[in-house]
């Protein structure tokens, strides 16, 4: 535990002794600020003439402003997370410090969790900017605490999921740039998979001319595929949760996603013990 903490502290501090931490925080602050303004102006326009936008009364603040904004923040973290995770392990390899790290009395799990915690710490730092904006809103109007808490939790869990993906990619690369590009590409892929999923037909798409048996089998396979594609989408889960609607599948999705990639990271780090190369 103490070792995990030591690794985490060093890693977290190096976000701020290099430009990475400032760059990520600065860009996120700018994006989140712009997003906040845009969603806020939208909300203001809608509440001035709700009928024009199909509302009978003033639109619900949490539903039309707060949760879309929080999901937006989650998406921004998705784009920035490769910046935070790309060097975690790749840089140790590149600089050769991994030779020290792996010859210190550390367990693999202490190395991995330490680094993962540091990246979560950075996500938390980014969320501080969101907190400032939400606090401003809270000063002028009452915000449903459940929606707010769940919303922020969702953004954090999204960040945690992207960090685990980035950590894994970093553990299989030697070069930061490769690591960052790969992690960014995978995040984008997941994002677009989600958008694609909305276009997949909801019913069995096999031709009726096929024999019943073949249609049934193909239908089941298609159903699994469609389910997989739509559930894989990272922000689909966020949208519900950010509105304060708790579905167990959403709540479990991000931790499962993280555990999966942390597990892969373990295997990647462990592979040094059986791979024949260096």
């Amino acid at each position, binding site marked *: 535990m*103490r070792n995990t903490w*030591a690794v985490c502290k060093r890693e977290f501090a190096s976000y701020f002794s290099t430009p990475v931490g400032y760059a990520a925080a600065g860009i996120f602050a700018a994006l989140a600020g712009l997003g906040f303004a845009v969603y806020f102006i939208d909300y203001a326009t809608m509440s001035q003439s709700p009928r024009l936008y199909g509302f009978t009364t003033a639109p619900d603040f949490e539903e039309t402003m707060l949760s879309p904004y929080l999901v937006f923040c989650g998406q921004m973290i998705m784009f920035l997370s490769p910046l935070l995770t790309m060097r975690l392990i790749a840089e140790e390899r590149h600089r*050769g410090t991994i*030779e*020290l790290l792996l*010859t210190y009395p*550390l367990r693999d799990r202490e190395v991995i969790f330490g680094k993962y915690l540091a990246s979560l710490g950075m996500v938390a730092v980014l969320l501080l900017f969101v907190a400032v904006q939400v606090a401003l809103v809270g000063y002028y109007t009452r915000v449903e605490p459940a929606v707010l808490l769940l919303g922020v939790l969702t953004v954090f869990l999204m960040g945690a999921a992207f960090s685990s993906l980035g950590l894994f990619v970093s553990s299989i690369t030697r070069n930061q740039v490769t690591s960052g590009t790969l992690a960014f590409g995978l995040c984008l892929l997941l994002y677009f998979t989600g958008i694609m999923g909305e276009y997949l037909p909801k019913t069995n798409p096999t031709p009726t001319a096929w024999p019943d048996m073949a249609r049934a089998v193909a239908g089941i396979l298609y159903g699994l595929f469609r389910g997989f594609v739509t559930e894989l989408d990272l922000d689909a889960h966020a949208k519900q949760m950010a509105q304060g609607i708790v579905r167990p599948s959403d709540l479990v999705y991000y931790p499962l996603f993280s555990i999966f990639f942390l597990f892969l990271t373990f295997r990647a780090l462990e592979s*040094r*013990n059986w791979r*024949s190369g260096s």
Partner: protein
Amino acid sequence: MIEVQGVSKYYGTIPALRDVTFQVGQGEVIGFLGPNGAGKSTTMRILTGFTPASRGTARVAGFEVHQSPLEVKRRVGYLPERVPLYDEMVVGAFLRYVAEIKGIARAARTTEVGRAMERCGLLGMEKRTLRNLSKGYRQRVGLAQALLGSPPVLILDEPTVGLDPRQIIEIRKMIAELGQDHTVLLSTHILPEVAMVCQRVLILNEGRIVAENRMDQFQGGDAEARARELESAFMAAITRDRALEEGAA
């Protein structure tokens, strides 16, 4: 203290070490000699648990490196060849981080770091960024991190490379001192160095131990004369090995 038994290491199909066996007793200072690519660094990496051996067993203080890596790593201080450091950190912060990871209690950490810095001539350098250090000072920091926690075994991969003559003399003196209460395994290209600090020398060539000499078997009156004798022993061992190899082929 160190027992290596029939260790081989292959990178893909290329053999880096072939059936290496040797032992190092407690408090001994052993020199690894050999041309580039002889397998000195590979042996050290296996002993520190950084890379696994393809075959054979390596034990440090009775613990098998692959089976109880933590026990071994707690007892070994390691200076890697290229001295990789976290460039953005300052000397003091880096050494405190290493001390923490090596399990030195918080209360003792400052004294321990101070002791290692003093021993390596780093006093007053605490606030310097590692990136800006000269090769010599990087080497000292590398040595200091290996010394933290006073591990009974020190494995130093070319500890004097890139240092100026004065620093080389200082480091050699230090290694000789360390040899009094540590088991030291060091590698080098520099023959006189071995003659000065080591009690025993292992000569590696193309992944095999081709000769083993005790320094006191050389009768030369001073270090320089012993170094010359060692030099001829070294050349003889390498040439003999080449001849054998060609004969076999």
